[in-house]
């Protein structure tokens, strides 16, 4: 999510393919270095409710995730 623009596709690829994975890792790190938060929409296995899972490392991303959403970190308004 980019202020002033909304949703912007940063990178896409198959994480099982090494070249794609390197590209995804690089973009993931770049976004976190810029101070963005990363979250993955998931379904709670217990309740079935949808919720988000914050990820701080590429390895934390659930393997079956379709996307990671980066958004500016929250600050007091």
């Amino acid at each position, binding site marked *: *999510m*980019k*202020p*002033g*623009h*909304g*949703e912007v596709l940063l990178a896409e690829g198959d994480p099982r393919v090494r070249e794609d994975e390197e590209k995804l890792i690089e973009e993931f790190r770049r976004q976190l270095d*810029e*101070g*963005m*938060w990363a*979250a993955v*929409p998931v379904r*709670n296995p*217990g*309740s079935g*409710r*949808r*919720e*988000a*899972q*914050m990820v701080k490392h590429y390895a934390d991303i659930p393997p079956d995730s379709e996307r990671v*959403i980066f*958004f*500016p*970190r*929250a*600050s*007091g*308004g």
Partner: protein
Amino acid sequence: MLLALLALALVTVVLAAPIAYRRAASWRAARERRRPAAAGELDMDLYDPGRERRAEQRARELLRSCVNEEEWGMYRDLGFIRVAGRHARRGLDRDRGARPAYAYLVYPHKPIVAYVPESGQLLSEYCVEFPDLTGTGGRHRLPASDDVLAKWMALTSDEDRVIRRANMHLVGRQLDPARVRRDLWRLAEWERRRGNREQVHHSQR
């Protein structure tokens, strides 16, 4: 006589040449200064009146793809989303159907309101924003639906962190408490109608 006039004209031209040259040079420099500025403006700030509308449309689709069906319906119909408090949601998960001890109303570009669903008591408002970190200048903000999604993701994934970062106030600093109470009433009505529709839907099966 003619020779004298020619000589006078020649002297005038010679005297005026440096002045004319300086004028021409400064005019050329001013023209050069103006030209790149105009080109830069064209590159950077061509106003696109549809950009924000398209961004909001994409944001709505993204929000819809992330939240529950009930939450999406709530946002579409009422303009806000209710998120159960994390500590309450654990209890809710154990005992489905029970109301959470507290919940939040998430509005676009307005503070998050904490309240008690059981009594309707308003607890506090949390002012939080997601500012532009890219440093590209200007002060843009997220489209309305992206702002709601960012709050939803922050609350459902790490409620404590977003609440710690927010500025907490009593309800009434930015939001009108009467309006929030009216929204709670609208939410209750919306849920009642939705419950009725689901009952009819099940009885028709």
